[in-house]
C-alpha cells in the first residue's frame, strides 16, 4: 500500500519531527510513503477568517498537489483533513475544472489515526512510552470527522503508557486559528481551563492528533512553567522525542 503524506504547513515548518514520525509509523506498518512536492497550506486559515476567495485559491493548489498521484492522502491533522474532506469540495463546487477532482481527493483523504486503524487496520504500531498521558480530542477531528475511537485504540496499544481521563476532554482548548490572536483574552481563558484540567489529571504528557491545538497547549504550559510534555500522536506511535525539539 502506498500513500501521499500531506504534512500540513504547521508540521512542515514548525514541527518537522511530527512529519518524520508520521512517515516512520506508516512505514513500520508496511505502508509506502510519498511526500508530494509543492505542498504548502490547505487554505483553512483563510477560510476561517472569512477570506473565501483566498481559501479557494489555496484549496485548488492543494488539490493540484494531491492529484498528480491517485494514492490515498494521509494528514497528521484532523483540522486540515476536515478542510480537504468537507470544505474544499464545498468551496470548489461551482468550479467546473476542480469540483469533481476536489470530491475525488476528499474521498481518499484520511486523518492519520483514521488511516492507521480503519484503512491499514494496524491499531498496534509497536510503540512504547513509559509514563502517563491524557488524550485531548481536537475539535475538528472529533466533530467533523468523528476521530476519537481510532486514536484511543492506537494509544491503548502503546506499551507502558497509562492513559488517564481528562476532565471536560471534549471542550475546545481555545486555539481557533486567528481567534487566539484576535480574541486573545477569551481564548486565553479557555486555554487556562484546558491547562488546569491537564495538570489536575496528574499525567506527565498530553497527546493529540493536531499540532495546532498542541502548539497552543504547549505555549500555555510553557508560560505556566508546567512540566507536562506535549506529544503529537504520531510522535508517540513512532516512539520519537518531543515535537518541539530540533530534528
Amino acid at each position: 500500500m502506498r500513500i501521499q503524506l500531506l504534512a500540513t504547513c504547521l508540521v512542515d515548518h514548525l514541527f518537522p519531527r511530527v512529519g518524520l514520525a508520521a512517515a516512520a509509523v506508516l512505514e513500520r506498518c508496511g505502508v509506502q510513503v510519498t511526500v508530494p512536492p509543492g505542498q504548502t497550506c490547505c487554505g483553512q486559515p483563510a477560510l476561517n477568517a472569512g477570506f473565501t476567495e483566498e481559501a479557494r485559491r489555496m484549496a485548488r493548489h492543494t488539490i493540484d498537489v494531491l492529484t498528480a498521484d491517485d494514492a490515498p492522502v494521509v494528514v497528521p491533522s484532523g483540522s486540515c483533513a476536515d478542510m480537504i474532506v468537507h470544505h474544499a469540495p464545498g468551496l470548489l463546487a461551482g468550479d467546473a475544472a476542480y469540483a469533481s477532482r476536489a470530491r475525488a481527493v476528499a474521498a481518499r483523504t484520511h486523518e492519520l489515526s483514521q488511516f492507521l486503524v480503519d484503512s491499514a487496520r494496524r491499531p498496534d504500531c509497536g510503540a512504547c512510552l513509559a509514563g502517563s498521558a491524557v488524550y485531548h480530542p481536537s475539535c475538528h477531528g472529533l466533530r467533523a470527522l468523528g476521530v476519537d475511537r481510532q486514536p484511543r485504540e492506537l494509544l491503548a496499544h502503546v506499551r507502558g503508557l497509562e492513559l488517564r481521563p481528562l476532565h471536560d476532554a471534549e471542550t475546545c482548548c481555545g486555539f481557533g486559528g486567528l481567534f487566539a490572536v484576535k480574541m486573545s483574552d477569551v481564548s486565553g481563558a479557555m486555554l487556562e481551563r484546558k491547562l488546569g484540567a491537564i495538570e489536575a489529571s496528574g499525567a506527565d504528557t498530553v497527546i493529540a492528533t493536531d499540532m495546532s491545538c498542541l502548539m497552543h497547549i504547549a505555549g500555555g504550559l510553557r508560560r505556566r512553567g508546567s512540566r507536562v510534555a506535549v506529544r503529537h500522536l504520531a510522535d508517540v506511535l513512532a516512539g520519537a522525542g518531543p515535537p518541539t525539539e530540533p530534528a
Partner: protein
Amino acid sequence: MIEPQPVSFHRGAARSLATPDLPAKIERATTRLVAARHAAFAAFPEGDALRDEARAIRARVVGHLDQHLIRFETELQKRGGHLHWAAAAGDAVRIVGEIARARGVRRVVKGKSMVSEEVELNAALEAAGIHVVETDLGEYVAQLAGEPPSHIVGPIIHKSREDVAAVFREKLGAGDEDVADAARMTALARRTLRAEFLAADMGISGANFGIAETGSICLVTNEGNGRLTTTLPRVHVALLGIERLVATMADLGVMLRLLARSATGQKLSVYSNVLSGPRRRDPAGSEAASEPDGPDELHVVLVDNGRTELLGTELAEILYCIRCGACLNTCPVFQSVGGHAYGSVYSGPVGAVLTPALRGLDAYPDLPHASSLCGACREICPVRIDIPRMLLALRARGARRPDTPAWIRQGLRMYAWLAVRPRLFAAAARAARIATRIRARDGWLRSLPGPLAGWTAHRDFPAFAPRSFQRLWRDRGPAAPR
C-alpha cells in the same frame, strides 16, 4: 433598529473576564446544565432520530413560512383571538402600547419573552406610565437589578444565590430571615408577585411555539407564572417571532420532547400550556355555561423585525432555532464570558449568528468572530443547526468590510499569494525561521510584535524549525526497501 455605535464583543468579553468570580459562576451554571442535558439524552434512545424529525419540521415551516402564518392567523381569529403584524421593533412596541392605552391598562405582569426584550418593550411601556413587572423569577431578579437577561433560558445564570440575596435586600427590603436560603427567597418573590398578578390589567407573554392548524400558542414554564400571566388579567398579549410556528399539534409534541431535555435536562417543563383563543363565553350569556377562566381578549403580535430578510438566504437556517439555550451552555466562549459580553438579547453561538443577521454587521461587526469554531453548538443543537457554517458565511461578508483590520486583510492575502507559489512559500518560511530563531529561547518566543502580541499575551510561540519537513524528507532520500 440601527445601533448608533457598533457593539464590540471584544470589549464586552474583556469586561466579563475582569469581573471577579463572574466567569467561574457562569462556568459552574452552564456545565451543570450541559451535564443534565447529556444525562437526559442518554436516557432517551430515540432522541437522535427525533432531532432529525424536529429539524425537518422546522425546515418545512421556515421553507413555507407564508402558508403557515396565514393558517395560524385564520385559525387564531376563528377562536376569537386578534392577530397583529409587527414589521419592525417599533411597530411591536406601538401595537402593544395602543392595546394597553385603549383599555386603560395601568399595570402589566409579564411572562418570559425574548422577543419583548428584542423590541425593548418594557422601557416603552414604562415611559407611557405603565407599571410593568417581570414574573419569571430570573427575569424578575434581573429587572430588580436593572440588568438585561444574560441567557435566553436562565436570565440570571451569571448570579449566585448570594448575589440574588443582595438584590432582594436592596430592592425589596428583605431581611436576613427572608434571604436565608433559596426556598425563603423564592417565597418572598412569590408573595410579592402574587399581589402583582391580582392587580394586573394586562398580561404579556412570549410563546415557545405557535401551532398553525389550531391558531394556538404554546408556553412552557417551570414556575407557573406563565399560567397566571395568560389567564388572570383581562387582556393577554403574546409576542412571537414570525418563525416560531409548527404546523400541527403532533409536530408540537416532537418539539416539546426535545426542548426541555435540551434546555435543562427535564423530560418536560413543569407547565406546558396550550392556549387557544380567549375565554369563551356562552352566547346566551350564561356564566355557568361559559369557560371559568381566561382573559377577555387575546392578542398575538407576530414580530418580523428582520426575519423575512433571512428567508431564502444562507442564514435562513438560524430561524430553525427553538431557543433552548443548549448551544450557549456548551459553548466554551459563552462559558468563559457569559451573555452580557455579546451586547445583545441573543447571546452565545445562536446570538453570534442571529444578532448580526437581524441587526447587521454595522452594529455587531465582531460577533461572528466570537467563536473558536469548535462545533460544540452544532453537536448539541436539538434541530442540528449548522452554526459554524453560518459564522463562516458572516465572516466572509465581514472580510470585505473596511473595519476588518488591515494586518488581517493584507496578511491573509499575502499568505494565500505565497501558498500557491511553493518556492516563495518556502523562502518566506526561511525568513520567518531566521526572524524567530534569533529571538527564541529554548525554541520558544515570549513575545511577538504588533497585532500578533495577542498570542503571546497568554502563551509562548514556537520558533520555526531549523529545517522544514520537506527539506528533511528530501535529504533522507527514498526509504530503504524492507
